[in-house]
């Protein structure tokens, strides 16, 4: 079990670095989403399920949706917007 925890923590660090390095903003938001999801699993392993539920709902759900909305507003959602312009 301790190996799983270490793997998850390593994944967190990799995600955190990848979010800031990634050139594509859409990729950044998706990586951030997976970061929140893994963080929720870690909260469960740390025996705080309340935080896990909130992290999964708010971190992986609502904030990512708001980020996608912001990306759509500034027209950086992907190639679809470029074709329209």
């Amino acid at each position, binding site marked *: 079990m301790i190996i799983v925890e270490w793997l998850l923590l390593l994944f967190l660090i990799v995600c955190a670095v990848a979010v800031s390095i990634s050139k594509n903003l859409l990729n950044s938001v998706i990586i951030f989403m997976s970061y929140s999801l893994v963080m929720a699993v870690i909260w469960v392993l740390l025996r705080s*399920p*309340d935080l*896990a*539920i*909130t992290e999964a*709902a*708010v971190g992986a*759900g*609502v904030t990512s*949706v*708001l980020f996608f*909305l*912001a990306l*759509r*507003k500034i027209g950086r959602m992907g190639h679809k917007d470029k074709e329209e312009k």
Partner: protein
Amino acid sequence: MNEELRRIWQQFYDWVVGNGPRPENEVVPEEPPPDLPFAQKPKDKYSRFHEATLKERYNQWLEIHGLHLFSVLYSGLSVLTCLVIVSLLLATVAELPPFGDERNPAHNEVIRRYVEHGGHETGAQNIVAGLILDYRAFDTFGESAVLFTAAVSVLMLLGASRRNSLKDDPSPHSDGEGWDFLNRGPPALRHHVFRQDDAILRGVATLSIPVIIMMGCVVVINGHLSPGGGFSGGAILSTALILAANAYGFERVHSFFNERTFIVSSSTALMIYALSKGYSFFTGANHIHSIIPKGTVGDILSGGLILPLNICVGLIVAGTLYGFYALFSEGDM
């Protein structure tokens, strides 16, 4: 000696002011080109050869090298700041007491009281819910009020601009006179950027929305029995609303959840919260017996005020988060 010093000082002063003696081997430019901007024209204030003053030389040097120097300084300083902050934080973490140690300062009589007497004092099986909605209910009230205030201010800001634009350009369906609070223009006038008929999205939404809503209700209603509570359950409910708005269009959600519903439900929830918690604080502070039953620990109808308070917080959070999405996406709710 004194004369010598004075002469050196005079030379230094002339050099600083730009009034120095003409060098022997200097080639004198005859006439400055006439199209030079005013600031770069050499001044002939003094009869002697005009050297650039220290300030002018500094400005010239800054024009040539300034940006490069700034970028080098900026990156260097930012790396330095990051290193300092990281080392400070790591040093602080190294000084922290070990995680979960029983001699930690956090393990005092307060937490012992919560763990030992929390069950029968609040009637909640989930001790976190007992903490945030009974012992610390006033803080949770403040948080809900902050969320509600934020949503209402965004609504006012975005709604005001929309209201003005509609007043200037009355649509054919609205009477153009005043503002109808319930019907803000026909739905066809709203601009939809990506409202295609997406069969996959609709199918997945039809399957998953009932499950998500049920999950949210379970998390809210079982807040005093199992992990979760008003805030997380409300967030889950709001994601169901956002998914519905994306799959079926905002009009469908608008038909049962619009600005008026949001305002009414959230203010009612806040009011119920304030009144019920105010009653419980009043009775508790004055040692009057409260009429609210605690119930048996573990039942669905237990925990005194925690269940209704959870439902109130869930309503506010669900409405607010969906409202943020709808307002920022459509400029309207």
